[in-house]
């Protein structure tokens, strides 16, 4: 299954792109995406433990299952306000 992960802020700068495509075996979880993303983009690995993930605009922890049509995003600690 192909999962595309949106990147923001420092994660985008470290990876050098706004989105990364990952090929993963089903069933796919956020935890598997997190691990795969670190292997695919070594530059991201140091910060991934500090990042949250979102699936379809909702915060999602490592146990959440992801479908191919879902929108997945990697969110470094937020600093709005």
């Amino acid at each position, binding site marked *: 299954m192909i999962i595309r992960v949106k990147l923001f*802020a420092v994660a985008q700068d470290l990876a050098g792109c706004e989105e990364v495509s990952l090929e993963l075996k089903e069933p796919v979880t956020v935890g598997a995406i997190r691990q795969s993303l670190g292997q695919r983009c070594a530059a991201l690995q140091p*910060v991934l433990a500090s990042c949250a993930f979102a699936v379809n*605009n*909702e915060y999602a922890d490592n146990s959440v299952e992801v479908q191919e049509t879902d929108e997945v995003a990697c969110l*470094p600690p937020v*600093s*709005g*306000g």
Partner: protein
Amino acid sequence: MVELTQQPIDAAAITQSVTSPTSGAVVLFLGTTRQFTDAKETVTLTYTAYAPMATSEMEKLETQAKARWPIDRCVLVHRLGEVPIGEASVAVAVSTPHRRDAFEAASWLMDRLKELVPVWKKEHWASGSTDWVHPGLVQREDENTLQ
């Protein structure tokens, strides 16, 4: 009402829009760009967002606040792009029948917004360098640190 905007925040229009004859209290909070963080001088700030999720999270906060306090009207606005020194990056305004609720709700909304809404600030320092602001970010150099 929630909004992400590239334009300057119109605090007067926001204040006016939450004022109503059924409310006795209006609280407006503005978060503005500071020139100094400790001794470091900021030239300007830029904000970026994961826009659809930021809007959705702000709407959830509005709903939750209205469930918790007797809020008459509520506005949450975050500015994106460049926010020059002294200008507002965020505005929260609420009206309630009594003032205690307005202060509590506005303060709670700001706390939650800063914690949950996917918006990121980049400092542009006078030295010419820039920094993303990521509170609590840990950069681990060893390999087996994934959650």
